[in-house]
């Protein structure tokens, strides 16, 4: 089907049949920071509070006609990134070049015009439709806002066309329905119809099938594939589900705490994941194949607080292969002791708790830290506790990052090795941000690469 039943895009952009590598959008050094206003006073006067770097320096070139997957867990910044591409969130810095315009700095009224070409499909189709608007009004509204129709009859015709395009046939049956009268799959179809009704070129789809019943998920994905083919769409597909990403995307970007840690062609990433985080994610997907098992070794802990991300590589506290330059700091030592007590039990905890209670107050991100010695105890006790902990878990990656432990003037000084922020570098066909793949750094022998 070559001729689309929907209006074609403005001339400038209808360069159909162009090379796959045509850049549709270029994201450069994009950062989105949010202010968390944590207390009443801050709320009152504005400002203050913590900053969360939801997107923390992302560079991606979006190619015309491709499906790019943004894959990550909650808090990875994938949704924020997707919304920023559509100008729904103002970035703190960086550029989003689309045509000859920078979406990051576009004024509202100019952005409004662009919205014909940039659209979004949401995770929860129920929430994405105004409960008080029937299907006709919901779909007709973007046309009216954009001034694409002259009268009601024209609007109705376009709405009917779009409904039929997404498989809601006969369209007459759906026109007067309120969202509450539609099933989940039907709602998502209506949301997609609304997204394509103005003839967009890019669709950002934020987990479009994760809230749907199992039996309609495949149908919606199939619909999206059809639309992509028929309307020459480009997709940014945001998901936490690696299985659909593998099936649906041409390229995937794996995100962790606001950064892209690995990006490349889907087949390559799934066949040979390079970043330890990607590897862990892939291994952790429960698969219906009973022969395939989740490994016993999983990254420990959970995604850290985005308001205080770890020093160096954000993944290092959970990474089994972390080594010297990954960004070790005092917090990691505290986590080590928590793990130790979890493993060794209450008695060890009761014995050691008091001695290292000051750990939680230590500054993060510093190479040299002085461990406070509780009153009544002396530094050598603390030192020997650290030595014991090291002797009992010598393979814990943390110890690779500890340069030395000294006792000076009744205080214990701990020096960490300098942490380096990993940058994306090309390895094979993919770009990966991990020191293990930096030839200048020497990963430990047992890292398995």
């Amino acid at each position, binding site marked *: 089907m070559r001729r689309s039943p929907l209006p074609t895009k403005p001339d400038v952009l209808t360069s159909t049949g162009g090379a796959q590598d045509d850049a549709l959008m270029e994201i450069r050094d994009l950062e989105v920071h949010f202010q968390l206003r*944590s*207390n*009443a*006073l*801050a709320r*009152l006067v504005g400002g203050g509070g913590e900053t969360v770097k939801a997107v923390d320096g992302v560079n991606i070139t979006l190619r015309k006609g491709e499906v790019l997957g943004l894959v990550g867990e909650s808090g990875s910044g994938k949704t924020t990134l997707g919304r920023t591409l559509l100008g729904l969130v103002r970035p703190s810095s960086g550029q989003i070049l689309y045509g000859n315009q920078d979406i990051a700095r576009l004024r509202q009224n100019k952005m409004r015009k662009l919205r014909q070409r940039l659209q979004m499909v949401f995770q929860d189709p129920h929430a994405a439709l105004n409960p008080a608007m029937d299907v006709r009004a919901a779909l007709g509204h973007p046309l009216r806002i954009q001034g694409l129709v002259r009268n009601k009859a024209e609007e109705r015709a376009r709405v009917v066309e779009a409904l039929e395009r997404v498989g809601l046939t006969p369209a007459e049956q759906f026109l007067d329905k309120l969202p509450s009268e539609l099933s989940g799959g039907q709602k998502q179809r209506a949301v997609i119809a609304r997204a394509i009704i103005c003839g967009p070129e890019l669709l950002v789809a934020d987990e479009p099938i994760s809230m749907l019943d199992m039996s309609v998920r495949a149908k919606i994905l199939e619909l999206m594939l059809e639309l992509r083919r028929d309307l020459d769409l480009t997709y940014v597909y945001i998901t936490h589900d690696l299985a659909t990403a593998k099936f649906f995307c041409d390229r995937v970007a794996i995100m962790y705490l606001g950064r892209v840690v690995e990006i490349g062609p889907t087949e390559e990433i799934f066949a040979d994941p390079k970043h330890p985080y990607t590897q862990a994610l892939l291994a952790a997907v429960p698969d219906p194949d009973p022969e395939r098992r989740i490994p016993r070794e999983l990254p420990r*802990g*959970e*995604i*850290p*607080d985005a308001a205080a991300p770890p020093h160096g590589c954000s993944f290092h506290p959970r990474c089994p292969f972390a080594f010297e330059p990954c960004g070790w700091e005092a917090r990691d030592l505290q*986590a080590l002791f*928590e793990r130790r007590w979890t493993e060794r039990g209450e008695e060890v905890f009761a014995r050691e708790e008091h001695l290292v209670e000051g750990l*939680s107050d230590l500054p993060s991100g510093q190479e040299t830290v002085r461990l406070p010695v509780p009153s009544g105890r002396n530094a050598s006790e603390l030192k020997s506790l650290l030595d014991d902990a090291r002797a009992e878990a010598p393979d814990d990656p943390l110890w690779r990052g500890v340069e030395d432990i000294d006792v000076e003037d009744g205080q214990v000084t701990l020096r960490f090795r300098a942490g380096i922020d990993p940058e994306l570098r090309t390895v094979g066909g993919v770009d990966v941000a991990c020191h293990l793949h930096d030839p200048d750094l020497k990963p430990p022998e047992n890292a398995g690469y």
Partner: protein
Amino acid sequence: MSTRTAGSLRTYLLTRVLLFVPQVIVILTIVFVLMRVAPGDPVSVALGGQRSEEELAELRAAAGYDRPIIVQYWEYISGVLRLDFGHTIIDNRSVAEIFAVNGGATLTLTVAAFVVALLLAVPLGLIAGRFRDTPLDGSLRVFGILTYAAPVFFVGLLMQLAFARGLGWLPSSSQASPVVTARVPSQTNIFLVDALLAGDTAAFWNGVQHLVLPAVTLGLLLTGTFMRIIRVNLIQTMRSDYVEAARARGVSETRVVIQHAFRNAMVPFVTILGLQVALLLGGAILTEQTFNWNGIGSQLVRYLDSRDYIAVQGIITLFALAVVTASLLIDIINAIIDPRVRY
């Protein structure tokens, strides 16, 4: 491990107390604007026609009402911060003195009413919520709505008719019998306290008897509202996920209700208590009027009748400050009982 430590109670309290200052300033500004948007200066409004123009001008100059409004605003704000609420125009009393003399009566009445309301509403609200949709709940709700629907002065009137006039059990007006009032020396201006300080038990009991009807009348005003809030909160907590989870662990129903539902239902109730002080004070004005209770509410009515803006402004300021202070206290109490508020 993303954790937020609970140790920041101090930080919370500090910010909350700091927040008190702008709140007070805004509220003072609003009171000032309200009272002074009217054309004409307070002196001529109160005394116009009674004194000669020269006298009025003199009074105006003495009180500073001929100065620019912004200066007067500053005078007012800084005055309040120094606890100087100005002087009344008609009888040239210090407003602070009105508080000192009549405040005790209002305080006695409101505190007693608050206690009555809590004593009635907490158990009744919890019972209604616990046995929701039973006849017991139904009758309690009707009782609650009735107490809410009946205006204080009407309840007061019925009380007087029934208990004072009809049955003759209790006195119907004023704080104490005139004889008793005369023999107790004023020290704190809180009659019950004065009676105790004077060691006059008979006078104390006389005061208590006089207090019963007004306190119950005003207390009933709050009871309906309180019951409703407590009942709804309890119903919500009873169906919360953690209550279900506790049941799934086999925790006994009594314990589920007391430990999980009652306790948690009281938290949102406590948060709204601060604002209820406003309702209480509003009701106090009417109750004082009904029972001839010589508190600040009665004074307010008196000065309103004589169009004494400065006295009215001072009394409103006091009431507003009382409410803001009460909400500050309530927020602090809330932070102590609810660990989630603290960060």
